[in-house]
């Protein structure tokens, strides 16, 4: 037993050495092409990280010079004066609620539409899926007034009108439904029916079957689409631009875009680079930890 595993490991090693020896000119050219794109991808980001600890003068000097001393105070100014901390918190709150809501409502709709035939089922499904083809820009101005009118609804109005996070959450949920329903109903259709039927015979209610049997079974699909929605909603810029116009309500993308467009000579450029770094670094960390799930989550839709 031990000898065979030793031989296998050894022959693998030999094969690897063999292939290393055969690193021909084509392989070198391939590596060069791939390395070139790696550099193109990585360098702008690293350059931004580097500039985030430069002084104002150094930023306006030679782009490739190294900082003479590390100006960590840029980060403090970005966090406090440019309100990046506030915007990031806003983004976290909005995305946490809207992704939870999207997954809850979306999986409920997808489950019923995929497993319960009834009159009008197909029509409702098509209504959801047709949303995939519409450009959001068509709806932009009416949407603004719909949300504004929501603000006049008695009692809950003040919480879901313009310039409210709950209002944005509801809009995010609604606009995430087409893809979520489309993807999840395809997924529910692939699950076996036997377990659910057995539970129904044992007296479990429809609701209980959904939450305790079908949702756990659908876990891989739920994970993919959750990642898809988290990234999509975290990175959203257009909808908050229209619906959140009060500064203290802004999400991160708005805050970042604003520091650069609020042009002027009194612009705090080193804080801008620090803000960019603060926006990119967490994504980089999350991405390196979950890169497999993120890649499959984002490409899942295209491969269905």
């Amino acid at each position, binding site marked *: 037993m031990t000898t065979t595993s030793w031989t296998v490991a050894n022959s693998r090693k030999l094969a690897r050495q063999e292939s290393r020896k055969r690193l021909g000119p084509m392989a070198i050219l391939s590596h060069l092409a791939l390395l070139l794109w790696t550099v193109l991808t990585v360098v702008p980001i690293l350059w931004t990280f580097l500039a985030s600890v430069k002084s104002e003068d150094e930023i306006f000097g030679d782009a490739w010079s190294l900082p003479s001393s590390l100006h960590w105070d840029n980060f403090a100014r970005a966090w406090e004066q440019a309100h990046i901390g506030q915007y990031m918190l806003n983004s976290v709150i909005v995305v946490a609620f809207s992704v939870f809501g999207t997954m809850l409502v979306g999986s409920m709709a997808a489950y019923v539409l995929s497993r319960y035939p009834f009159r009008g089922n197909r029509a409702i499904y098509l209504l959801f899926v047709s949303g995939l083809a519409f450009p959001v820009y068509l709806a932009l101005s*009416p949407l603004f007034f719909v949300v504004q009118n929501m603000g006049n609804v008695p009692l809950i109005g003040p919480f879901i009108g313009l310039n409210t996070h709950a209002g944005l959450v509801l809009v995010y949920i609604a606009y995430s439904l087409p893809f979520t329903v489309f993807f999840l109903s395809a997924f529910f259709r692939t699950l076996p029916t036997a377990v659910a039927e057995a539970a129904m015979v044992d007296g479990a209610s429809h609701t209980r079957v959904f939450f305790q049997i079908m949702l756990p079974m659908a876990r891989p699909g739920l994970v993919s689409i959750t990642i898809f929605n988290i990234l999509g909603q975290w990175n959203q*810029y257009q909808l908050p631009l229209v619906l959140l116009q009060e500064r203290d309500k802004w999400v991160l993308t708005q805050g970042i*875009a604003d520091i650069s467009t609020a042009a002027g000579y009194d612009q705090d450029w080193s804080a801008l680079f620090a803000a960019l770094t603060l926006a990119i670094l967490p994504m980089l960390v999350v991405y390196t930890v979950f*890169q497999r799930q*993120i890649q499959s989550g984002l490409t899942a839709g295209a491969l269905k």
Partner: protein
Amino acid sequence: MLFNRYRRGLFITAFLAAPVTLYLVYVISPYIQAFYISMTDWRGVSATPAFIGLENFRRLLEDGTFWKAVTHNAGLLVLLPLITIVLALFFAFLLNVGGGGRAVGGIRGSKFYRVVFFFPQVLAVAVVAVLFQQVFRPDGSGMLNAPLMALGGKPIGFLSDPGVAFWSVLGVMVWQAVGFYVVLFSAGLASIPRDMFEAAQIDGAGRLSLFFRITLPLLWDTVQVAWVYLGIIALDVFAIVWVMTDQHGGPDWSTTVMAAEVYRNAFQYFRFGYASALGVVMFFFTVGFAILSLRLTRRERIEF
């Protein structure tokens, strides 16, 4: 029995109520309203906007800015998918098939390359836009212009020269998109049986014919999907133009796109009627593109 059917109906209604209501209020109703608003002169203040028929559309035809926007979207529609798909196919082929050595197989470090290439995809477009605004600075403080000037060249106005700005926008879009399609095509390639490549190689196929005779035909389905995705991105582009370019689509309207004009007309000029008319045109472009690409790319599917 009757009770069971009643329970089933109640369950379906309860589960669909929230998603359908949200979707109707925030998605479907704005889209329907947009078609009506596009035929009015509504500026947001008057309670009863006047119905002016197709007047907005007639004015659109004479609007030079609109035509510039359409031209830029059309340019992106052709170039973005073309460049991105060619680059992504090339890299995916190198990573998975055309690796070093005589054996058909992935190049060493292919996982590393895939992880790095994909990263820009998880960044918000708004963040990427601000990042490249800095990379493209017009003097020696710009990441790209510094080495250019060090070599004795003249600095390029990546965003300030009307002849160049459009290409900068295209470049950034390609930069962000390529990694996603490398991963997508790699997943497609992984599902092609290895012996196909090996058999072809035994028959004397070189790398080129391996690519054009085996890889491309078998990946054709995935390439079509990529084409549609990128086409829709090209028609819907907003944040990169709005945040990165001078004067939101400048200089001198040289980078403006339809989505930017919709937003500008609605939320800066408060011409909601006119903006909605623009949105309707966008809608027909997008639907037209989707139908056209489904028709044109239909081809015999290769089963394996």
